[in-house]
């Protein structure tokens, strides 16, 4: 006789950084169905952006939607508003913005790898990656003045210039980080006990990836060619050495591999940006009030982030629509849970790198 057992996970759990509640319907060890409750972090940012804040302040408010991809949120919003204000930025501003976004991607991917390994029961590796990650955090603090919330991008430019000492610090810390990433690469590919937790678990096929509109590292691990850096021309990504990275398999192992390879590529891109930084002013003049409707898309560490901004020639915007990566990834996430073992649930969950504060806004 088959009997389903309901097992709740969350909203407060040691393996969860953020409140999300799952209810797993299990048959013995196997998960048959999942209910997810994602609304714990809903604060009402969309409403507040369109009623309480002026359009110049909204950039700082939307950065607080998510601490991990704060810079991509403010970048997405700024790009959309700049389209409405008909401002075009010079090459130096574009390069500095790309620099911060890539640094953010490095630290976010490292946090995700650390979290995955912790949830697979490998706490020493978690501590090691978190220690290596501090190198990037130091760079971010030196560049923007804060470790997490950068507040680096403002409408029309960036708030701070890259000084010579900061550029030297970037290159030095990247050189220190490079061998450690190589070591991590070896650990994630060759370690037998990690492969037991990662290989073939939580797999997503290419058909499923197409069907559920997955995005970011999750889709690229399944072999789906999608990356907003490839699909938009707002930034000269090809000039600084961007190439799309895809893997086959779609399991946790492939996702980790995508993240590791993107880490290496982002480091190379940061180096290219710092070395080939063009001259120019860091702030362009803006005037007027936003009018019309614009869509801006940015590649956040977790996938595609979209901002739709509509203004009506007043300083308060009419609508700000935020589409975050995890939000569109949840149907695929629920699909992957079905049929896998309950003991693998924390590792699968961490391999998605879910960001609930993005999802619920």
């Amino acid at each position, binding site marked *: 006789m088959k009997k389903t057992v309901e097992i709740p996970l969350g909203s407060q759990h040691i393996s969860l950084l953020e409140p999300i509640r799952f209810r797993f319907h299990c048959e013995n060890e196997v998960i048959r169905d999942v209910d997810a409750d*994602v*609304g714990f972090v*809903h604060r*009402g940012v*969309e*409403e507040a952006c*369109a*009623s309480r804040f002026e359009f110049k302040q909204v950039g700082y408010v939307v950065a607080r939607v998510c601490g991990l991809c704060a810079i991509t949120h403010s970048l997405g919003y700024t790009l959309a508003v700049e389209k409405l204000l008909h401002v075009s930025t010079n090459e130096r501003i574009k390069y500095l913005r790309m620099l911060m976004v890539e640094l953010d991607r490095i630290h976010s991917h490292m946090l995700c790898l650390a979290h995955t390994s912790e949830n697979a029961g490998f706490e020493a590796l978690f501590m090691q990656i978190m220690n290596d990650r501090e190198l990037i955090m130091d760079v971010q603090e030196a560049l923007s003045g804060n470790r997490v919330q950068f507040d680096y991008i403002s409408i029309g430019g960036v708030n701070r210039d890259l000084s010579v000492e900061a550029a030297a610090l970037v290159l030095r810390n990247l050189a220190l980080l490079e061998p450690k990433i190589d070591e991590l690469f070896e650990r994630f590919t060759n370690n037998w006990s990690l492969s037991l937790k990662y290989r073939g678990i939580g797999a997503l096929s290419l058909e499923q990836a*197409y*069907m*559920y*509109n997955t*995005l970011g590292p999750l889709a690229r691990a399944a072999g*789906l*060619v*999608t*990356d907003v850096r*490839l*699909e*938009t*021309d707002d930034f000269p990504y090809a000039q600084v050495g961007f190439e*799309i990275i895809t893997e086959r398999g779609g399991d946790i192992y492939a996702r980790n591999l995508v993240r590791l390879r993107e880490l290496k590529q982002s480091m190379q891109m940061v180096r290219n940006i710092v070395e080939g930084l063009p001259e120019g002013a860091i702030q362009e003049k803006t005037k007027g009030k936003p009018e019309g*409707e614009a*869509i801006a*898309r940015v590649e956040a560490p977790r996938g*595609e982030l*979209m901002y*739709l901004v*509509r203004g009506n020639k007043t300083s308060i915007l*009419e*609508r700000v*629509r935020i*589409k975050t990566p995890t*939000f*569109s990834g*949840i*149907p*695929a996430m629920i699909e992957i849970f079905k049929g896998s073992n309950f003991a693998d649930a924390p590792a699968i969950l961490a391999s998605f790198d879910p960001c609930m504060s993005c999802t*619920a806004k």
Partner: protein
Amino acid sequence: MNKIDVSLENVVETIKAFYDPAAHHFLTLNALRAPEDQIELEWIFTRYGVIEEPTVFTLTCKRDVLIPSVTSFIPSAIMSERETVDMFGVSIEGAKRGLYLDDDSLQMPLGRCRV
């Protein structure tokens, strides 16, 4: 962006004829208050791996009608539909309330008339 106007009757057929799972990527469903107690809905699509402006299907209708759902061929649309139902107080086929909001919180925060 390329805007295509649709009506309440042919919205599902138009999107179904346009949408190709292997090429198109459903971004999101956006909603907006329109004058005279109407609501404006936008289904936004892009293509995988190609530089292209997003394609937007626009529908303007009354707030109290039942809006058809596209989840039968785009399963990932369920989240944005549930969010729209919560935030604007409209009804969409098959979308439950209560994704973000509880019974004791402010209902349909974005669908209210702004003073």
